[in-house]
Every structure is written in structure tokens, then in C-alpha cells.
């Protein structure tokens, strides 16, 4: 893995809200994180946690709707929030690319694969059709699609789901971007195909040195691919840490719940412990900790603090921070009791 410490994407206090008929929806509240060149940040959370919306905000894809974006997003030193939409557009597809969950609906059904790839090349580069097509063929070949020339002239509905996601990846990487945002790239795929796609992403990251923001609800995927992890809940970051820390020293009850839901063949299946209750409505956010209504341990915190005061994102060790009113001792005790976190 290419290792540099240079920060490529720096997000500070990013908030996104939508005006709807029912009221103001606070989809993302005060999220901050860094992505370094060539590295992978995994943003983990349930649906509705704000993980997809935050990345769409970075891409400038929320503009024109009733979305309000605030905070700072710096990409390679360039401020994106409040920037000329045209400047942001030029970044999209060239330096920042994105792939989506369902490759069938994400590819245009009426245009040939080749045409969609060629369009992606030509929008950012003045190259001939023939050169663009050559580049498209090259990329398809590289993402492991056989009979490339034939595929170029086929339509999305003529390909399998895995092949389509490979096409999406090829299209995203065709301009050699520095940052790839992969929004649940494997969720819609068969389990066996999921692994192939993840392997492919990893290989391509090595080859191109692309930084990846991997959005997923599946901590199992995170373990394979990520360098850093940010856990989101109810629009807020509730825990941020290097991937090892998340698995070995998780600090936040929600993260514990996520870890507990990973099926693990080598552990006792009785420990599989889904989180009770439902994700919060983003319209009427609880005044205290967003996770409090579902938190099993809130009674261990005195003065009903969890329900009244939102905890700060508190650094617990180097590069590791979490939002929780539990004391360090309480957390250690619970982890020990519940056998949460991997033993060495």
C-alpha cells in the first residue's frame, strides 16, 4: 500500500440538512475526518445514518435540491463547500470518482457500455473517439472483463451484476482519480461476487494509489479493506479510529452492537446480539446522545446525562475518538464482561 501522510481530503464540521414539508431534516451534523492519499477510510453505519449523504455533499451532488451544506471540505487544498459548481463539476469523474450500490440502475439502460465509458473519458479529456475507446477497452480489460471489444458494444442489461459493477469501477477509475468514493459497492451483489469486487478494489488501489472512501454497513468488508474507520449514527460521527482499534478497542456501545452483528464462525453464535430498537428520525433528534434511546448502558451514566446532553467526540487514545458518556473504566468493564473486541 502506498503510504504517505499527506492529507488528500479534509472534512471539517460538515453538516447537511434538507428542508421538507415535514420539517428540517438534519442528515449530517458536524462531521470531520481526513482521508490520506492512497489510503482507505470506511464510513460505517445503518441506512439513514448520513453516510451516503455526506459523500454526495463532498461530490457537490446535492446542489440544486433543497439541501443546505455547511462546514468545510478541502480537497487537495481546494475548498469545495460554496465553490463554483462548475469547478466542482470538473473535479467529478476526473479527480474524485464515485461508484454506487446497484450497478444496473446506475448505468444508463439506453446507451452502450462503450459509449458510457467513452463519454466519461471525453468529458474531461480532449481525445478522439478512437483513443477514448481504446482507453475504455484498456480499463475494462483491467477490471477483469473478458471479450472487451464485444462488451463495449453491449448494453448494461446484457451483462451480469458482477460484470456491471466492474464496468462501474472501470468507468470511475478511467480518468485515474485520486479519490474514489464507493457507496456500498457490493451490497447488491451475490456473496461470491462481493469478494471478487473487493479484491479488485484492493488491487486497483495498490496499482493506482487511489484513496478510497468506502461507505458500508458491513464491518466485515471494513476489516478487509480499510485503514481508518468512521462509525456514523443519526447523522453524527460516533467513533473514529484506525481499523485495528475499532476491532480491538471499540469505545462506543453502538460500535459494539455493530461488531456483535458480524457473523463469526469461530465464536459462539449466542453472542450474536443485534441492536434493539430503530434508528432515530432525523427530524426530531433527541436532545442528548443520539444513540441513547437504543443504548443498553445509558443507566450506568448518572443524572440521566445521556438523555439530556450530547457527548463530545472525545479522544481516547492516539487517533481514536468516540462520543460516549461512559467512563473509560465502565467501557473496559463492559467489553470484558461481554467479550467485545478481538482478543489477541
Amino acid at each position, binding site marked *: 500500500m502506498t503510504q504517505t501522510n499527506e492529507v488528500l481530503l479534509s472534512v471539517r464540521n460538515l453538516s447537511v440538512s434538507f428542508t421538507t414539508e415535514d420539517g428540517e431534516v438534519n442528515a449530517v451534523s458536524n462531521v470531520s475526518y481526513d482521508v490520506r492519499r492512497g489510503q482507505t477510510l470506511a464510513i460505517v453505519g445503518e441506512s439513514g445514518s448520513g453516510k451516503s449523504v455526506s459523500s454526495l455533499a463532498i461530490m457537490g451532488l446535492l446542489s440544486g435540491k433543497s439541501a443546505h451544506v455547511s462546514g468545510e471540505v478541502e480537497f487537495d487544498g481546494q475548498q469545495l463547500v460554496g465553490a463554483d459548481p462548475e469547478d466542482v463539476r470538473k473535479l467529478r469523474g476526473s479527480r474524485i470518482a*464515485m461508484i454506487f450500490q446497484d450497478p444496473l440502475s446506475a448505468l444508463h439502460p439506453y446507451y452502450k457500455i462503450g459509449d458510457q465509458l467513452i463519454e466519461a473519458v471525453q468529458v474531461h479529456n480532449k481525445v478522439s473517439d478512437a483513443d477514448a475507446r481504446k482507453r475504455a477497452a484498456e480499463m475494462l480489460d483491467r477490471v477483469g472483463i473478458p471479450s472487451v471489444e464485444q462488451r463495449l458494444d453491449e448494453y448494461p442489461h446484457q451483462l451480469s451484476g458482477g460484470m456491471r459493477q466492474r464496468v462501474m469501477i472501470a468507468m470511475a477509475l478511467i480518468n485515474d482519480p485520486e479519490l474514489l468514493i464507493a457507496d456500498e459497492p457490493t451490497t447488491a451483489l451475490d456473496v461470491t461476487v462481493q469478494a471478487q469486487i473487493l479484491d479488485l478494489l484492493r488491487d486497483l488501489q495498490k496499482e493506482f494509489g487511489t484513496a478510497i472512501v468506502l461507505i458500508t454497513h458491513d464491518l466485515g468488508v471494513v476489516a478487509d479493506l480499510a485503514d481508518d474507520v468512521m462509525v456514523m449514527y443519526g447523522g453524527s460521527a460516533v467513533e473514529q479510529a484506525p481499523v485495528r482499534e475499532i476491532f480491538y478497542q471499540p469505545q462506543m456501545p453502538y460500535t459494539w452492537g455493530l461488531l456483535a452483528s458480524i457473523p463469526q464462525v469461530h465464536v459462539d453464535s449466542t453472542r450474536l446480539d443485534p441492536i434493539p430498537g430503530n434508528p432515530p428520525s432525523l427530524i426530531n433528534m433527541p436532545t442528548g446522545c443520539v444513540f441513547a434511546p437504543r443504548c443498553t448502558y445509558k443507566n450506568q451514566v448518572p443524572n440521566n446525562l445521556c438523555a439530556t446532553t450530547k457527548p463530545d467526540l472525545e479522544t481516547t487514545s492516539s487517533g481514536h475518538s468516540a462520543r460516549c458518556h461512559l467512563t473509560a473504566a465502565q467501557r473496559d468493564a463492559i467489553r470484558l464482561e461481554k467479550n467485545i473486541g478481538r482478543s489477541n
Partner: protein
Amino acid sequence: MFPYIIRRLGLMVVMLTLLSIVTFLLFNAVPTDPAMLTCGKSCTPELVAANRIRLGLDQPLYVQYIDWIKAIFVGRTYGSGTQTFPCNAPCLGYSFRNGEEVTVMIKAALPITIYLALGAFVLWMVFGILSGIYAAKHHTEWQDRVIMGVALVGYSLPVFFIGLVLLIFVVVRLHLLPYPDYVAPQTNPVQFLQTMILPWISLAILYAAYYTRLTRSQMLETLSEDYIRTARAKGLPESVVVRKHGFRAGLTPIVTSAGLDLAGLLGGAVITEYIFSLPGLGRLSIGAVTEYDLPTITATVLVAATFVIVANLIVDMLYAAIDPRVRLS
């Protein structure tokens, strides 16, 4: 695709034949005797009988039908004694009410209706689609509300009202244009345009309102599709996203409606033709119906039906061209 078209055209001939038979049968079921209608005040049974022979109504229905079909291929002769005259193939019959060969009348009326329909079609498609796209792009903003309000008004106005108001104000009161007086475009292009502009606008207002609404709702639907997000994520300029990716995907229902609306108009825009004194197919067919003029009724019905069938065929072929998932076989 070629065998498919041949098969569809074959089917069209069968349908038109059936339709002509049904028209003959229906006509025969009307209680009014066409021979009585042209008999006048001093009508006597002998005159009615003579008239029946003249109109060909003395023959059994199937003989009338066979004669009619035969004349399409070989022509026939009308009149009697020393005063006969030919009706040359393709002879669709002779209209005794209009004193003219039906083929001649159709040939005269058809171009007028085609010009009327095509001109209005171009206008309403351009304005309807552009304003629909514009409204969709400004969804929830004031531009959208203004356009949709205007479209609702346009859509609610009956065409005879639009036509009469335009004619009376633009021509009768304000003298901005001369009275409609149809001439063929090759004869006098300026007069042709002066005559056609108001009918085009009258029809276009009605249809453009509908196509604005249709286009807007189609665009709103397709612009929320995942592949539109992909297109934006590729960094495509918004205009390309809307036009190339959004509009094409929303085109199918628009093409369906457009094909059928155009075909319907080509069968004759009765009210518009009436208001603007355009002797097109609509007037011809309505006149034929009110005067029990069988050969003209049959011919105009067949012409209108042909347009609808051909339009359906073209729409189906356009589907295949627009959406690769549709394959014709």
C-alpha cells in the same frame, strides 16, 4: 426488423378491409334513406327509385361493396345513357352530395390536413418539451409553478374557444393578419403561412399544454434515477445530463402520445378546420357523415385508420430505437 414491418403492413391491409366492411354495414343500419335526402320537395316514389339506382343503393350491400373494392383497382363508370363519366383507379367512389370523385376530394383535402397537423405538431412538441424540461429543472421553484399554471389554463380551454378568440381578435378586430384563405404553399408561401399560423397556434396551445405536463412529469421521474446521479458523478455538464441522459430516458411515453396525437390530427382536425375555413379531411368526413355520403365516409375512415395504424407501427419502431431493451421480432 424488415420481416416485422412486412407483417405489420400485411396486418394493416386486413384491418382496413375489415374496417371498410364494418363501415358499409353500419351505414346500412342508419334509418335514413340517402335516396330520399336528394329527392327534394316534389319527391315521388319514381324519383326515389331513380335516385337509388343513381347512388347504387338498389344493389345488395355485398354487391355495392365488391363494386367499391373493384373500382379501387380498375376504376368504374358513373352516370347513364350518353352522359357517363369515368372514375379512374384508384377510384374510391363518387360523392353525389359533393359532385366530385372521392379520390379527388381526398387528394385535395389531405395535404391541407397534413400541413395543419405537422405544423401544429412541430410547434407543440418544441414548446411543450422545452417548457416541460425547463419546469422540471426548476421543480419547486416559481418558474415551475408559472409554467404549470399557464399549461393548466391552456389545457382547459376548448380548441374552438382558442381558435375563435384568435381569429376574432387577431384578424377581425386588430387586422394583424388577413382572413384565412387557404392556398397551397407552392402557390403562395406567404399567404399559406398567414393562413396556417393561427390554426397551428390554436392546436399547438392545446397540445403544448399537455406535452408540457407530460414532459415535466417524465423528466422529474427520470432525473431522480440512479443513472442520472452516475452521469453527474462523471462530471457531465448539467445540460448534457438533462438532454442526453434524462430526456432520452423519459422519451418513450412522449413518443407514444405524440404518435397517436399526430395520427389523430391527420385524420382531420374538425373544429380547427371549421373555424379557419380549411377544407381538410375533418370537414370532409363530418360533411360526409351529416349527408349520409357513404363513399366519402368510407374513404375518410380508411384514411384516418391508416394514419393511426402506421403511427402505431412507427411508434413501435421508435421504441426499439430509443430503448435497446425493446427488440422487434
